[in-house]
């Protein structure tokens, strides 16, 4: 099967394809599971699998399964669990292909294949053995956010900035491709997506002065197909005649060079460590870009293109089609790498192809994904760093009096460096037409300090202390209506809601908390319907799948960590509030609520 894209086909064809291949995947090499990728724009039957971290190309994370619903979820029971043997932050999503679950651990990035016909029995494990030294250049715990399935292969990134292709049946390594260099501070932590046989992913290292890029690797042989940088000359950024940014300030030659002090673009960040979505009809991928480096804005006057922004690129060759910066000349480490949720929404009486983005700077954006025009941007968290949004120019109205810099400490900056929302991905339900967003409620004090670039060492230039925002709750789980542009309901959480969200056709939404509760809430009201106490705090991505027995299952990994949980994962000392780039200041009591862990839990109705 070479053409794995059936988005535009009629549902009946999808059903036939799914029915003929779906459940036989891991059994025979000749038969592969049907891959039904879709954006939410096209309704589609759910084949019960989970083939990429975000479930679908539209980053919707919606499961069409409905056995588990708001009426019966209270009966949900643990079916089986599996210890990963690793104790760092588990941010990953399991995959389900045929009768097999796959899971990539944090460093050392072990890939497990678990038998769904036999209570999660280990079929095999694959150990890529990345060098231990890679841990020394991972800014925010040694996480991995998941893998992707394509054509009989599991593809994922290892912390030492390699991509690997593994035979999904045998666990044999088929290829391993070096994409970055830990001695330049590069790691890889994101989950790749595969489009037309090319696995696409980028580097991490915005706190190490890396030069951000996104690359595509041919899944059949591991060869690099293309690479686009997010700073530097147009030729490197893959900006050519097709590049048509919506706003005039983004038009011009080599802005990735001229919007920086001399040569600084070479160490300016703009990494790609979050989520990529894909629109098959436009043949465009959408990816964010990370913060500029160093954090101290005095050291890099200019707009610092194309950091803290988003690109629409041709999926076949990486060519840039449009770009937009959420935070030009970012002041607060507002990385622009969050999920890009592709929806078709009625805007002012017209159905528009949009991209919905709960952004780190605290605004929830709705963009026209064909042009990059901002259609709306609304506050979804408490904000003091800006006073509003200028829709005409597509710009956040920053409060310039709150600019930190060398020797200048600014206080009560909200949202804090991890933003209104960090990497933790939201989920969209086409039934309730709400976006379910796990997010933060944190503020910070920030002072700029000198930064000395030494390759392979941190390049931050800031001293930060974080604390709870108004209300004292450090996290929140909100349901947002992007058409009415308002919050439908929200749940306050003690700690940052650092897990992903999962919406299901049973109108139940799942997420986990750092203080060890895996929760099911009513998709329409937010009412808590069920919870399960896990061994460690949860920062993973919940998924739902149909087992070989025809039942619907829910899966989540625990294992606290990540930037928010570094105090536990790294055993940091709470007396130093600037630890973990200032996050420890806000998380001093986390060790009283959870230890390290690393277990996959799978739930079903009795």
């Amino acid at each position: 099967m070479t053409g794995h894209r059936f988005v535009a086909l009629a549902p009946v064809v999808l059903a036939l394809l799914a029915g003929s291949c779906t459940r036989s995947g891991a059994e025979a090499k000749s038969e592969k599971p049907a891959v039904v990728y879709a954006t939410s724009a096209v309704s589609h039957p759910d084949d019960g699998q989970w083939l990429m971290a975000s479930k679908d190309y539209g980053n919707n994370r919606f499961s069409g399964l409905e056995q588990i619903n708001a009426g019966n979820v209270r009966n949900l029971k643990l079916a089986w669990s599996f210890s990963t043997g690793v104790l760092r932050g588990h941010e990953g999503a399991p995959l389900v292909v045929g009768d097999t679950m796959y899971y990539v651990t944090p460093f050392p990035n072990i890939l497990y294949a678990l038998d769904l016909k036999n209570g999660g029995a280990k079929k095999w494990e694959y150990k890529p053995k990345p060098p231990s030294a890679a841990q020394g250049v991972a800014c925010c715990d040694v996480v991995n956010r998941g893998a992707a399935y394509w054509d009989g292969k599991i593809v994922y990134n290892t912390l030492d900035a390699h991509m690997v292709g593994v035979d999904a049946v045998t666990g044999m390594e088929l290829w391993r491709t070096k994409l970055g260099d830990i001695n330049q501070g590069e790691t890889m932590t994101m989950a790749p997506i595969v489009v037309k046989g090319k696995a696409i992913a980028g580097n991490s290292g915005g706190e190490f002065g890396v030069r951000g890029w996104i690359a595509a690797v041919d899944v059949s042989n591991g060869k690099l197909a293309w690479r686009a940088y997010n700073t530097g000359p147009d030729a490197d950024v893959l900006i050519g005649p097709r590049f048509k940014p919506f706003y005039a300030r983004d038009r011009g030659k080599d802005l990735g060079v001229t919007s920086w002090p001399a040569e600084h673009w070479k160490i300016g960040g703009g990494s790609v460590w979050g989520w990529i979505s894909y629109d098959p009809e436009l043949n465009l991928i959408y990816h964010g870009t990370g913060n500029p480096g160093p954090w101290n804005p005095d050291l890099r006057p200019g707009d610092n293109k194309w950091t803290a922004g988003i690109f629409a690129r041709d999926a076949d060759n990486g060519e840039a089609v449009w770009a937009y910066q959420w935070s030009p000349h970012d002041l607060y480490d507002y990385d622009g790498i969050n999920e890009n949720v592709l929806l078709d929404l009625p805007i002012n009486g017209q159905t528009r192809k949009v991209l919905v983005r709960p952004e780190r700077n605290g605004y929830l954006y709705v963009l026209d994904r064909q042009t990059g025009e901002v259609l709306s941007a609304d506050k979804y968290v408490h904000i003091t760093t800006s006073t509003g949004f200028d829709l005409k120019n597509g710009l956040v109205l920053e409060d310039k009096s709150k600019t930190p810099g060398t020797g200048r400490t600014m206080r009560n900056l909200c949202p804090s460096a991890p933003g209104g929302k960090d990497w933790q991905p939201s989920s969209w339900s086409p039934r309730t037409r709400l976006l379910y967003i796990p997010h933060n409620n944190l503020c910070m004090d920030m002072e700029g300090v000198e930064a000395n670039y030494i390759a392979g060492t941190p390049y931050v230039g800031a001293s930060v202390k974080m604390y709870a925002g108004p209300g004292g709750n450090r996290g929140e789980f909100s349901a947002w209506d992007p058409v009415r542009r308002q919050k439908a309901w929200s749940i306050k959480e003690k700690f940052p809601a650092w897990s992903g969200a999962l919406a299901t056709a049973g109108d139940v939404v799942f997420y986990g908390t750092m203080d060890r509760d895996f929760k099911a809430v009513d998709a329409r009201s937010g009412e808590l319907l069920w919870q399960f106490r896990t061994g460690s705090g949860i920062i993973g991505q919940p998924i739902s799948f149909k087992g070989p027995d025809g039942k619907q299952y829910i899966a989540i990994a625990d294992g606290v960590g990540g930037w928010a949980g570094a105090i536990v994962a790294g055993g940091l000392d709470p007396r130093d509030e600037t630890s973990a780039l200032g996050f420890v200041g806000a998380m001093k009591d986390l060790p009283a609520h959870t230890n390290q862990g690393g277990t996959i839990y799978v739930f079903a109705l009795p």
Partner: protein
Amino acid sequence: MCLPCRRCWWIAAALLGLAIGGCSPPQPRGGVPLGNMVEGNRQSILQPGPPRPARAVRNPLAGDAEAIEAGKQLFSQFNCAGCHAGGGGAIGPALIDDQWIYGSSGGNIFWTIIEGRPQGMPSFGGRISEDQTWRIVAYVQSIAKLTEEEKSEKAGIR
């Protein structure tokens, strides 16, 4: 604390391991005079055979106020703070707590900086002078607030 001596120490340890492995009394085989081997900075309090006095290398600048202040600047300039923050840790472990994975003696910390350590501590050898390194060690010892006695005792405690 010179590099060749450390290598010798490991050879000695390996030979000693061979001797113990053979269930023989702990004496060298092949005529290598173990007693002549120079000891390095121990990273373990576990010693095969009768205990020997610790011979950890001390920081010649330990407690020197000027060295500590200079070390603080160097701690920042060499981006130590990027990983260890103000001592509470981040990418790297905390330096103000009571856990010393690779030993807390002056020599332990010195060699940790020069050699690097396998879980992500970079090797700064060749990029930093011996004098600068001792000053950073003095600063780390000052924020760790360890007494001289504790600095020895905590060597090797994880």
